[in-house]
């Protein structure tokens, strides 16, 4: 038996969840918030609205990925669905992979719909703004950001499943995944500050550098500035590197998750 039936069931189950439609509605609401905030600032209001709208988009996809991966895996165990599934001729590792694929599909759909909402929103804001110099919105750039945000969501889903297997409390797993995400976002700035500081000891610098290499670096997926400022250029090599990095790291996390799930007492 292969993991695809589990993936299909997971995907269908996740679409029925309230969090899917709830977070999409929240995103529409946050678009209005972005517009309101931008009205307060002097100068390029479209830039400010985009900054906020894209940040909300970025964090909503991250939250959705964590919620669905942790929630879905935990529900299977608490509702004892997992016994039913594993009574079939299916390896435990296939179950984990299936779960992951199902979450990936849900994250893909969520990201696509979010991309549609955010793009329509910022295009409307930009076309209705009264600026001396219009702020040009390049949809291709928003799409590239969405692709990276999707990769980040997939990456986070893998961690969500790992934490759901690792911890016996759902709240603990959720908090751990969210903190891991925030820490992964801070990694580059922390390294930048620590390495350039003369007040940090060489040992601490070394620890930070090791953490920088080993810890998942979520700041790589954050290219909001590239969407907002057209003067910023990004090479295709960057996108290829991020894709390969997330693919390799996600595989590693899934390997650990399958290893732990094989040994977990249910």
């Amino acid at each position: 038996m292969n993991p695809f039936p589990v993936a299909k069931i997971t995907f269908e189950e996740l679409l029925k969840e309230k969090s899917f439609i709830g977070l999409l509605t929240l995103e529409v609401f946050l678009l209005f918030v972005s517009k309101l905030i931008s009205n307060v600032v002097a100068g390029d209001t479209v830039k400010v609205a985009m900054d906020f709208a894209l940040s909300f988009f970025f964090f909503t996809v991250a939250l959705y990925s964590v919620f669905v991966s942790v929630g879905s895996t935990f529900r299977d165990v608490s509702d004892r669905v997992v016994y039913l599934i594993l009574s079939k001729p299916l390896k435990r590792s296939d179950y984990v992979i299936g779960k992951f694929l199902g979450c990936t599909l849900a994250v893909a759909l969520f990201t696509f719909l979010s991309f549609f909402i955010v793009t329509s929103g910022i295009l409307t804001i930009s076309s209705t703004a009264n600026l001396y110099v219009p702020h040009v919105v390049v949809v291709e750039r928003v799409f590239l950001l969405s692709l990276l945000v999707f990769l980040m969501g997939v990456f986070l889903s893998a961690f969500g499943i790992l934490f759901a297997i690792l911890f016996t409390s759902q709240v603990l797993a959720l908090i751990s995944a969210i903190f891991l995400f925030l820490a992964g976002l801070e990694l580059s700035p922390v390294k930048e500050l620590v390495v350039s500081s003369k007040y940090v000891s060489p040992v601490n610098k070394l620890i930070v550098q090791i953490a920088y290499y080993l810890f998942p670096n979520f700041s790589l997926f954050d290219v909001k500035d590239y969407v907002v400022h057209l003067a910023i250029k990004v090479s295709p090599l960057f996108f290829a590197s991020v894709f390969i990095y997330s693919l390799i790291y996600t595989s590693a996390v899934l390997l650990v998750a399958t290893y732990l799930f094989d040994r977990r007492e249910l």
Partner: protein
Amino acid sequence: MKRLLVAFLLVVVSIPFMLKADKSKPRVNEVAPVLPYSYSQVLLSSPGLRSPAADLLFMNLCYLTGNDVFNRWKERKFTEEEWKRLIENVEVIEKLDPYYFDPLYYLGSYVPWKVEKNRELLLRINSILLQGNRRVKDWRLPFFVGFNYFYFLGDKVKGAKYLKLASQMKGAPSYLKLLVPRLYAESGRINLAIAVTYEELKRAKEEPVKKELKRRLKALIAMKELDRALELYRRRFGKCPSDLKELVKSGIIMSIPEDPYGGKFYIEKGKCSVWTTSNLRPVKEPTSSR
């Protein structure tokens, strides 16, 4: 249903107490000071939110400046220390979002007028503007730097240098091309002024600008010749002539050239150099009243 109604009524009953408590709540001083923000603190406290953090800092800055401009705090205006913090906060904003133009525009167009006596702060503003100009390619940034140098700091040579930089950038108005040679000429660097004008003339495409540059070049060359004649006179007689006519009388020049702007060339007493009453700007004909 009854319970829900009671719950709603309880909330309504609590409102006057909330209002009373809110009124009697101890307030902090309403005169908001300009707080210094540290780049590392803002960066670490806003993971993945560098740009929105920069936006919020700029909003705060505009709000505080607005209060100062419209005299909302009747008892005081910003102190010099607060202007300094404000400038430092713009630096933090630019570190957080290096492509953000509006804070740089605010810094260049408004703040120098408020700190015009403080040389150190003016130089700091210029350094932030030049740093910003590495990424934000807008002619207004070197223009502000040039303006600060020649207007507030009295350094016409540096002023001309940055105005020249601004005049060569996309979108710069054509009058900048004329302003640069004038600043060089005013600072006594006529050779440089001629070279810059000649360079601009080669580059200019619009006919009115070309015409203006030719007129400027003609005036500058005349000034250069008069300067050379003054030097000769000084060497021969060991003093500066009191009038340009003395140059003609002594046979150094045949006649005093005409200023193409309609002014008259004269000798600046202290410097023993030539300048014109037109200030290198077209002299307006006096309108005759009937």
